[in-house]
């Protein structure tokens, strides 16, 4: 029993962390290459070589960092990603932890991500990292509500806050069709959570890397891996919430989940490379004034749909 309920889930999550982060690195490189970034070498080996390089490089220090927080932040971000991956169901029975309140748990992961990213920017005691941290808080506080409304929307027809139930409720029709506003809004949240592409306000180019401007070596590796893993966790949740999780003809459930996650990742990575970075101020206005009312509409839509 211990093996089944403890060892297997932990191994599963760690496997997804490693495989997921690697997949994101490979996919992003392929997309960058397709969009014109010059590169040589094998896309399969490049992420590993980069990891090895970061492990040999020494970790940087600043004059008076908050050491504990500085080391804790990347590790915490990694654990948040792990927790997110743990609630993603791969089939009706294959899920690392099938918590009855897994939707709420994911909501708390999103909220804590803001704290962790801010901590990362703050603890370096360096100007650019600090600005990156504070900017990110503005974004984090704006996307969190959108995400909550959208997720509540998928919980309504399921009458449950459990991701396995949410998937089961999509037997007839996937939520992506039933609640057409849901997935696009949720993808924006995903870019925000991982500060990817257009919503990269934390580690942006104008801040010479923002919260990551002062880190090098192993801490940077952990930070990058955690970010990629978070993107995978997010795509897992998006798959369960909107794309019918393991549901699908012919192929076995887990394979369907993997395919759908890859599709979500692909969309996110493409958006990340195609859109310019939003100005923080415009980003906050956009989220509150346009996207949040849209998420209200999504919720009402979901509610009416669930009652009919």
């Amino acid at each position: 029993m211990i093996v089944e309920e403890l060892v297997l889930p932990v191994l599963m999550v760690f496997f997804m962390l490693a495989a997921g982060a690697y997949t994101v690195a490979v996919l992003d490189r392929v997309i960058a290459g397709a969009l014109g970034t010059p590169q040589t070498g094998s896309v399969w080996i490049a992420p590993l070589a980069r990891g090895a390089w970061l492990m040999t490089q020494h970790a940087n220090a600043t004059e008076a960092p908050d050491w504990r927080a500085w080391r804790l932040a990347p590790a915490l971000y990694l654990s948040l990603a792990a927790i997110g991956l743990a609630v993603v169901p791969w089939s009706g029975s294959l899920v690392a932890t099938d918590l009855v309140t897994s939707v709420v748990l994911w909501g708390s992961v999103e909220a804590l991500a803001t704290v962790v990213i801010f901590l990362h920017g703050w603890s370096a005691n360096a100007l650019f990292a600090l600005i990156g941290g504070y900017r990110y808080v503005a974004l984090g506080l704006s996307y969190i509500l959108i995400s909550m409304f959208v997720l509540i929307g998928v919980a309504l027809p399921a009458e449950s806050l459990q991701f396995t139930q949410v998937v089961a409720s999509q037997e007839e029709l996937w939520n992506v069709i039933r609640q057409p506003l849901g997935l696009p809004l949720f993808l924006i949240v995903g870019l925000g959570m991982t500060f990817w592409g257009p919503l990269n306000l934390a580690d942006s180019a104008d801040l010479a890397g923002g919260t990551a401007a002062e880190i090098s070596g192993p801490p940077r590796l952990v930070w990058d891996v955690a970010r990629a893993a978070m993107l995978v966790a997010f795509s897992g949740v998006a798959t369960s919430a909107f794309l019918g999780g393991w549901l699908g003809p012919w192929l076995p459930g887990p394979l369907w989940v993997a395919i759908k996650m890859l599709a979500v990742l692909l969309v996110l990575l493409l958006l990340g490379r195609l859109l310019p970075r939003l100005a923080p101020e415009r980003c906050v206005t956009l989220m509150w004034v346009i996207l949040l009312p849209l998420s209200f509409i999504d919720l009402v839509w979901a509610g009416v749909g669930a009652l009919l």
Partner: protein
Amino acid sequence: MFPVLGVQGDKALRHLTLSPDIELVDSPRHASVLLVAGEIPADRFEPLRRVHDQLPYPFTTLWFRCEPWPHLENVTRIDDLDVLPAALVTAYHELMEGRRESSPRILLDKPPNPWEGAGDFGQGGEGMMGGVPYGRPMAMNMEDDIRDGLTLDSLTFRLGPFFFAFPPGMAAEITLQGDLVQTWKTQRAPYPQSLDPVFFAARKRLVPIAALELARARHHLYRLFHALHLAGLESASLSALRLANNLSTTSTLDGLRRYLSRSGFFRLAAIKGGELGPEQARRIGGPAARAAGLDEDLRSDDAGYRRLGFSPVCQASGDTRARWRQVLAEIDQSLQLARQAERDDVSTSEVDRIETPRGPWLEKRPEDASALLDEILPGQEWGDALATIASLDVAAVAEAPLDTQTTGESPITELSDDEGGPA
């Protein structure tokens, strides 16, 4: 790599951007190789030493068309642009395989101020806010915020001359309140920029308008490349660069322009603000002035251009967004003029009134306008401020054209870094 460009340093930078083996990064912390590209003037040695010491162990330094400091051992100097990428990769591999020693630190290993144990508990100072914990004072409020008058701490620092978002060589003393610029003082003007030789030739004799206009379009595209990188549009910045490198009279800007407007560059990115008044616009001249509505372009006085039906394009608002629209419109116009001029074989008719891409060249070459930044940047959010700088071509025009200077006043430089993947 951490791109701070100079006259010829920026050329090396652009070359490396398109080299598949090299990854350029914006912060020295992310680098294993430091590239000093081009001559560094003596007054920027101290900042270079600081940046040099900020790369994490192990790292190595390459000097490109720049004399390495004599006290450094085991340094590599490269002069040929074509072998530079390979030399960087070799240096990186040697470093990783332990065949090359990490560069030594140049500066002394001591905190910026002595502090240890000054206070009662071994901390850095005395009293509530006094002293220099860990070698630096704590931030103290200096003045009220300019936007809402709230009195919180402001942070004062000097940035550059090797900051990638600045024109190469520029340095400024900046005070921030939150992420808003409170004061801005440009301390070092950017290095004068070299223009294409054709503009210098045009001052001596009549030249074909096609060549002149292509060089103008290329100059603007290089600036666009830089600004798009800053805006996070890596793939668009690369296509601007490729377009510039392969520019001919058959090139068109349509693809890039369509992509920019569809991706929301003009609506969503941080390119708000930075309005120039008419007087300020006149001081900087060139496309920035026309973006502010000044209808001045020396090409209107040239009979050759009049034959091609030239009339200057203008924007009204004079802010960062208008400047980019202006630059896109001017690139388009230049390509069109070049096409017509090539077909009809038209040459210039004036030699002492040349409109360079940087501005009008009458008796004097366009001069440095970086002091303008002190007036327009205060009150802007950090991202908008950097975008404003990227949109303004403030550097003076150097005495000699591109590629002919090897010594002397030129500046340039900088750093680079790593190549993440192993080749």
